[in-house]
C-alpha cells in the first residue's frame, strides 16, 4: 500500500518491510532525521558501535552467521569514509550488506559543505552497486532494489547515499514487490556441461572437490547437497578458508583446508589430482601458488555464479555458471540417473595415496615447557568448545591460519574471517554482529593482540548491549605473520613488527567493565578457558604464547603445491627473488 511519509520514515519502514531486525550504526548531522525515526519505533534494534568500520564488520558478521543481509546506518563525510574498509572487505568476500549513509542536502552537494564527501564516488569501486537518492519519491524503490542487488547472484555490499533534505521531505512510499529489475543473474547451470561433469566423475581416477565461500553463500541447502554428493561419490574434499564448514570437519572424506597455510595432504592432492571440481571458489592466489605449476595433470570443472570468476586465473575445462545449490542438485540428478558410477578401483588407490600424505601429520606439534604454544592454545580451545553451539570469528594473521587449521567446523555459517581483503580489526566487531544474530550462542573471536587493538573501542559496544563475546587473544607481542615473513624473506630484520607498549589486557577489560583473564602457564590453560566460557559477559582472554612461533605448513611465495614447507628446518633460502616480490 502506498503511503505519504517523510524520507526518514521511509527508510525505517522499508527496513521493516525487508525483514530487518538489527541495524548497526553511528549517528551524525546528516542522518539525524533517520535517527529521530529510529527513536520512535520498536521494530528495529539499533546497535550503537564506537566507530563506523566496526558497524560494517558487525553487519558482515551478522550476515555471515545468519544468512540475512546486514544493515548499517552512518552519517556523511567521515562516517562514510570510515565505512570504506568494511565495504571493501564485504566486496572481496561476497557478503551481502546494505549501508545507508547520510549526505549533505542536495542543494549543497558539490559546495565542499561541512562533512561532505563524494560518497558514491568513493565507494563505487568497493560496492557491488551504489545509489545517490535525490528525490524522496524514489527512495523506497531504491532501498528495496538495494536489498535485491545485495543478495541476488554473487552477494555483495551496496550503499545508499541519502541527502538530508530528501530525509525531511514527504513523498510516496512503495512497499516491496517482486523485483522487476533487469538484474536477474543466472542460477541454473548449463545441462550439457553438467552432464559432461557427471561423466568425468564416473571415470576420474584421482578426483578432488575444491570448495569455497560460494557454497556457504548459496545457503544451507547447498551444503547439504554437497555432503550428499561427496558422501555418494566418496571423493576427497578440501576447502578454502572461506568455505570451512560446508563439509563437516569430522566427515570421512574431509582433508582440511588447502592453500598457502593449508594441509599437506590437501595441497598434494590438489597437485596430483586428475579431476578438480571447484565449487564456489575462485582460484585465489593464496590457493593456487605458482599458476604455471598449479595442478598440472587435472581436468578442471569450475562452478561459479559469477561469469567473471571463470577463466580469470585458471582455465576451466568444464565451466558451469550458476548457483551452487541449483548446480549441485542437477549434478546429483544427472549422475544418479546415469547409474551412480565411480571408478572404485582407482579411487581405492587414490585414497591410499592420500592416507600416505595424511600420515605425515603436518599439524603435529608438541607442547613442552612452561610457554604456551599457539597451536596448543587452539587445540585446547577446540577440545573445550566444540560441543557448544559455537561461532568463531578471527582477526587476520598467524592466529587466523592456526584457527583454520586446529578448529573444526561441522556446519556452514559458523566461521567468520576476513579472507580476501585480510582486514586486521575485522574479528571483534564481526563477533558482535554474530552475537546479535545468535544471542544464546558461544561466540569466540580468535585474535592476535595487534589485530584486536585495531578495533578495541568496540568493547564499549559489547558492554552496552550485553553481548557476551569471548575475545581469545593469542598474545605474542608481535605482528606474527609480518615477523614470520621478515624472518624468511628479509634477513630477520624485524622492522616495526612488534609493539613496545602493549596494554595490560586485564586492566583494559576492567576499564570497560568487562572481564579480563590472563594465562601464561600451559597447566592453567584449560581452567582459564572454562572460566572464559562460563562467564556471562564479554571476556578479554590474554593468552601469552610463544613469541617466535612460525605458521606451518607453508607454500612459499612463487612455489607450487608440492613444494610445501613443513617446518623450520626447511626454510633456509627457499624463497627466490621472484617469490619475494609476491605478497
Amino acid at each position, binding site marked *: 500500500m502506498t503511503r505519504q511519509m517523510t524520507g526518514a520514515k521511509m527508510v525505517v519502514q522499508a527496513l521493516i518491510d525487508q525483514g530487518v531486525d538489527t541495524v548497526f550504526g553511528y549517528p551524525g548531522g546528516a542522518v539525524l532525521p533517520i535517527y529521530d525515526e529510529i527513536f520512535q519505533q520498536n521494530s528495529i534494534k539499533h546497535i550503537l558501535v564506537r566507530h563506523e568500520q566496526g558497524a560494517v564488520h558487525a553487519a558482515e558478521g551478522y550476515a555471515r552467521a545468519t544468512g540475512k543481509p546486514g544493515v548499517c546506518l552512518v552519517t556523511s563525510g567521515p562516517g562514510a569514509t570510515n565505512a570504506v574498509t568494511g565495504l571493501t572487505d564485504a566486496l572481496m568476500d561476497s557478503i551481502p550488506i546494505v549501508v545507508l549513509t547520510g549526505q549533505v542536502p542536495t542543494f549543497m552537494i558539490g559546495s565542499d559543505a561541512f562533512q561532505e564527501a563524494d560518497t558514491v564516488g568513493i565507494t*563505487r569501486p568497493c560496492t557491488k552497486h551504489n545509489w545517490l537518492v535525490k528525490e524522496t519519491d524514489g527512495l523506497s524503490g531504491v532501498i528495496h532494489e538495494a536489498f535485491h542487488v545485495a543478495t541476488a547472484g554473487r552477494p555483495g555490499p551496496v550503499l545508499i547515499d541519502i541527502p538530508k533534505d530528501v530525509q525531511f521531505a514527504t513523498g510516496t512510499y512503495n512497499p516491496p514487490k517482486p523485483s522487476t529489475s533487469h538484474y536477474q543473474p*543466472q542460477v*541454473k*547451470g548449463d545441462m550439457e556441461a553438467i552432464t559432461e561433469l557427471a561423466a568425468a566423475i564416473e571415470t576420474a581416477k584421482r578426483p578432488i572437490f575444491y570448495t569455497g565461500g560460494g557454497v556457504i553463500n548459496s545457503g544451507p541447502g547447498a551444503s547439504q547437497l554437497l555432503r550428499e554428493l561427496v558422501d555418494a561419490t566418496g571423493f576427497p574434499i578440501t576447502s578454502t578458508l572461506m568455505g570451512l564448514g560446508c563439509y563437516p570437519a569430522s566427515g570421512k572424506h574431509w582433508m582440511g583446508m588447502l592453500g598457502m597455510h593449508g594441509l599437506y595432504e590437501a595441497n598434494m592432492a590438489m597437485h596430483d589430482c586428475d579431476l578438480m571440481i571447484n565449487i564456489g571458489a575462485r582460484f585465489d592466489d593464496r590457493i593456487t601458488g605458482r599458476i604455471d605449476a598449479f595442478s598440472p595433470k587435472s581436468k578442471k570443472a569450475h562452478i561459479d555464479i559469477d*561469469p567473471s570468476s571463470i577463466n580469470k586465473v585458471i582455465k576451466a575445462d568444464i565451466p558451469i555458471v550458476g548457483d551452487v545449490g541449483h548446480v549441485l542438485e542437477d549434478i546429483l540428478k544427472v549422475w544418479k540417473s546415469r547409474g551412480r558410477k565411480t571408478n572404485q578401483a582407482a579411487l581405492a588407490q587414490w585414497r591410499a595415496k592420500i592416507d600416505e600424505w595424511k600420515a605425515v601429520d603436518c599439524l603435529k606439534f608438541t607442547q613442552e615447557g612452561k610457554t604456551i604454544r599457539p597451536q596448543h592454545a587452539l587445540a585446547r580451545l577446540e577440545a573445550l568448545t566444540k560441543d557448544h553451539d559455537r561461532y568463531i570469528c578471527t582477526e587476520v594473521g598467524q592466529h587466523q591460519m592456526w584457527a583454520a587449521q586446529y578448529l573444526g567446523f561441522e556446519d556452514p555459517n559458523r566461521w567468520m574471517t576476513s579472507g580476501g581483503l585480510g582486514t586486521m580489526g575485522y574479528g571483534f566487531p564481526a563477533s558482535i554482529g554474530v552475537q546479535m544474530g545468535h544471542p544464546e550462542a558461544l561466540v569466540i573471536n580468535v585474535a592476535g593482540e595487534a589485530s584486536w587493538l585495531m578495533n578495541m573501542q568496540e568493547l564499549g559496544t559489547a558492554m552496552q548491549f550485553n553481548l557476551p563475546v569471548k575475545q581469545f587473544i593469542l598474545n605474542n607481542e608481535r605482528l606474527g605473520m609480518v615477523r614470520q615473513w621478515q624472518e624468511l624473506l628479509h634477513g630477520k630484520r624485524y622492522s616495526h613488527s612488534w609493539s613496545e607498549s602493549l596494554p595490560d589486557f586485564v586492566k583494559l577489560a576492567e576499564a570497560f567493565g568487562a572481564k579480563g583473564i590472563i594465562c601464561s602457564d600451559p597447566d592453567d590453560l584449560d581452567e582459564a578457558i572454562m572460566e572464559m566460557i562460563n562467564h556471562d559477559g564479554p571476556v578479554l582472554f590474554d593468552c601469552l604464547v610463544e613469541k617466535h612461533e612460525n605458521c606451518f605448513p607453508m607454500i612459499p611465495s612463487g612455489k607450487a603445491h608440492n613444494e610445501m614447507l613443513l617446518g623450520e628446518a626447511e626454510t633456509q633460502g627457499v624463497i627466490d627473488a621472484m617469490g619475494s616480490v609476491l605478497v
Partner: protein
Amino acid sequence: MSALKIKKGSTSHSAYNLRPTFSDVEERHTLAVLVENEPGVLARVIGLFSGRGYNIESLTVAEVDHTGHLSRITIVTTGTPQVIEQIKAQLGRIVSVHEVHDLTVEGPSVERELAMFKVSGQGEKRVEALRLADIFRANVVDSTLESFVFEITGAPDKIDAFADLMRPLGLVEVARTGVAALPRGD
C-alpha cells in the same frame, strides 16, 4: 554470438562458449555496452578499466533510447583473448549494464568515426589540402582566407590516413568523436 555475451535475465546461454583459447597475442576488440543512463554509469565503466588495468583505445557514449533511458557505450580495447573475455565478464557484472556485445567476434560489423581537422596554410599547400579533402570526401565546414575546418567520417584507419596527409599541409588541431559501431545485417 559473443563467447561471453552476458545478457541479464537469460538462463540458457551455454557455458560451452566460455571456453577460451589462451594466447599471448594482443587483439583489438570493439565492444558495444548497453547501459542504464543513470548518474555515474560512465564512471563505473571506465573505473573498471582503470582499476583492473585494461586499455581503452576509444570510447564513445550517448543516450540511444530516450524513453528506455539506455545509453550505448562503444569501447575499443586491446588485450589477449583471456583479458578480452575478462573485460566482457567484468562489464557484465556491473548492475547498470544491460548487455555486452563483442562486435569483433559476433559477426561482421561497421565502424565509423567523425573527425574535424583544422588546416592552416596558403598558396599551393592550401589548394592541395582542399584537393585531398575532396578525394577523402571530407566536407569543408568552416573557412577563412588562411584556414579550413574539414569534417570527415569513416573508419578509424581512413581518418588516420587523412591526418597523415594533412600534417605536412598545416594541420593545427584535430577533434575525433571516437568509434561508433553496429553489427551488419539483421
